[in-house]
């Protein structure tokens, strides 16, 4: 049964719960656009279109780590608005990616807001600790922040999906052809952002040639992804059995072996990378 109301409610609840970050490995699954695409697709009776839209959005956000919980862009929000719109309107999968990207930026604001408000609960926990109230502390660590998240998150996604499809369908008839074409070119180009971000995160110059080997191996041979993964894993194991790259061996050991490192030292590399990308510096 294809019900816009049901879709709007489910995706709103999904955004609330996944962004509430309950279950450390659970929420990384719930926030994955691929997984969201598959599940919402099932709900609409079209899992293939759903997972295709989700996968296209996933690629744009590859390599974005959230050190210290600072998300650089909210891929779950992006997917939870773009995927239902693909399913419910005439919008193509390529267009979905271009719609998703600006939406993802809004999610960052909501997340930061949440982390300001969460300070309330830690202050209450300070008082409860003096009384030895274990259950009270648990409530402040879980249920209250989750409840607060509902107010902040559910309405946005619900409204966007409940009214969005009609709006998009109207827009699609007005927007000139060249804009639509430009947006679908963008859908093909935005994945470059995800891959470049990952290369940037993995960094080190010794690894760069491997990128080109992977790229041209596939370009020339038309190898499938799993085929490429097999070759890649074998190359990685051979290099590692031969002792790896000497320069990097020393570097990583020095980074992680000292116990007296100041609390955030080891985190700084990633945090810096994200900060630079977000322009916080």
């Amino acid at each position, binding site marked *: 049964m294809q019900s816009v109301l049901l879709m709007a409610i489910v995706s709103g609840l999904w955004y609330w719960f996944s962004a509430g970050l*309950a*279950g*450390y490995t*659970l929420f*990384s*699954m719930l926030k994955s656009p*691929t*997984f969201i695409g598959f*599940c919402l697709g099932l709900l609409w009776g079209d899992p293939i279109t759903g*997972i*295709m839209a*989700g*996968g*296209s959005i*996933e*690629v744009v956000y590859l*390599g974005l780590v959230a050190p*210290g919980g600072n998300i*650089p862009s909210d891929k779950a929000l992006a997917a939870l608005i773009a995927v239902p719109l693909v399913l419910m309107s005439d919008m193509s999968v390529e267009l979905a990616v271009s719609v998703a990207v*600006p939406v993802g930026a809004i999610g960052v604001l909501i997340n930061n807001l949440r982390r300001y408000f*969460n300070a309330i*609960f*830690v202050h209450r*926990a300070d008082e409860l600790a003096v009384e*030895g109230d274990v259950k009270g502390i648990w409530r402040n*660590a879980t249920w209250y*922040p*989750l409840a607060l998240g509902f107010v902040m998150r559910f309405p946005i996604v619900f409204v966007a999906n409940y009214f969005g499809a009609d709006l998009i369908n109207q827009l699609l008839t007005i927007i000139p052809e060249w*804009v639509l*074409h*430009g*947006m679908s*070119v*963008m859908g*093909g180009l*935005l*994945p*470059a952002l995800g*891959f470049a971000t*990952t290369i*940037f995160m*993995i960094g080190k110059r010794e690894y760069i040639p491997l*990128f080109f*080997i*992977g790229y041209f*191996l*596939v370009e020339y041979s038309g*190898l499938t992804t799993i085929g*490429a993964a097999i070759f*890649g894993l074998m190359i990685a*194991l051979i290099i*590692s059995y031969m002792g790896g790259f000497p320069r990097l*061996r020393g570097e*990583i050991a020095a980074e992680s*072996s000292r*116990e*007296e*490192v100041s609390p955030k030292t080891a985190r700084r590399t*990633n945090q810096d990378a994200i900060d*630079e990308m977000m322009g916080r510096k």
Partner: protein
Amino acid sequence: MESNNKTQLTKRDITRTYLRWWWTAEISNSFERMQSLAYAASMGPILEKLYGKGSQGLKDGLQRHLAFFNTQAIWGALIIGTTVAMEEQKASGEDIPDETITSFKSGLMGPLAGIGDSLDFGTIQTIFYSLAASFAVTGNFLGAFFIVAFSVIHFFVGLGFMHTGYQQGRKSIMDILQSGRINAMIQTASILGMFMMGALSANMVRLETPLEFNVSGSVINVQETLDGIVPGLLPLAAVLLVYWALKKDKFTLSQLMVIITIVCLVGAFFGIF
């Protein structure tokens, strides 16, 4: 209600502490104290069992674990496992000062977060997710399976770390940090990651030009000419340009998104793409 009997913690206690930590680690994350509330909430029932309900030991313990804390929760399970063991010894009468526990936590949360963020999320998860996405865009349900598989494996890795931390204590963490194994794992994963980024860029980044030039009567198709030199030059150039822009610190991610939008729209308007 201070009891002198040693309270023995069971395997089940440790697993349940992990489950609490796994469930709550990020929910209450705040700018002010990060995961400190989650840490205290996860330790609460253990402290209650060790020191007794309403005891001074419990109250002190809860306050002790409300100190600033932030790490990657899976590798951080090593820390929480170890502190459970430390609390158990402290409760049984051994002299372990508060500062020892607190400085142990704050000393190791950084290095372990560094490993967890870069190895688990930066590299291995990215490999899983990019494989997933490459299946997903062709409409293959295996895509969703890869996402679920990573989460399940990651969950059990954390559970393993929790028990290791509890059984072997602080020594286990130092051993892990100092052994070459972590280093080898990071290198292997990075090499595979970099290779896969190349392979997937070739598969998933799409950019073509319909441009044609009429040179003295014969039509030259730009795309065919480029493919004749080296296949896939345009998508490759796009990835390298974005990488260069990030690396040279010239542009931020959001600026790049805006630039890509403008380039695509302008290109489409003039028929370049």
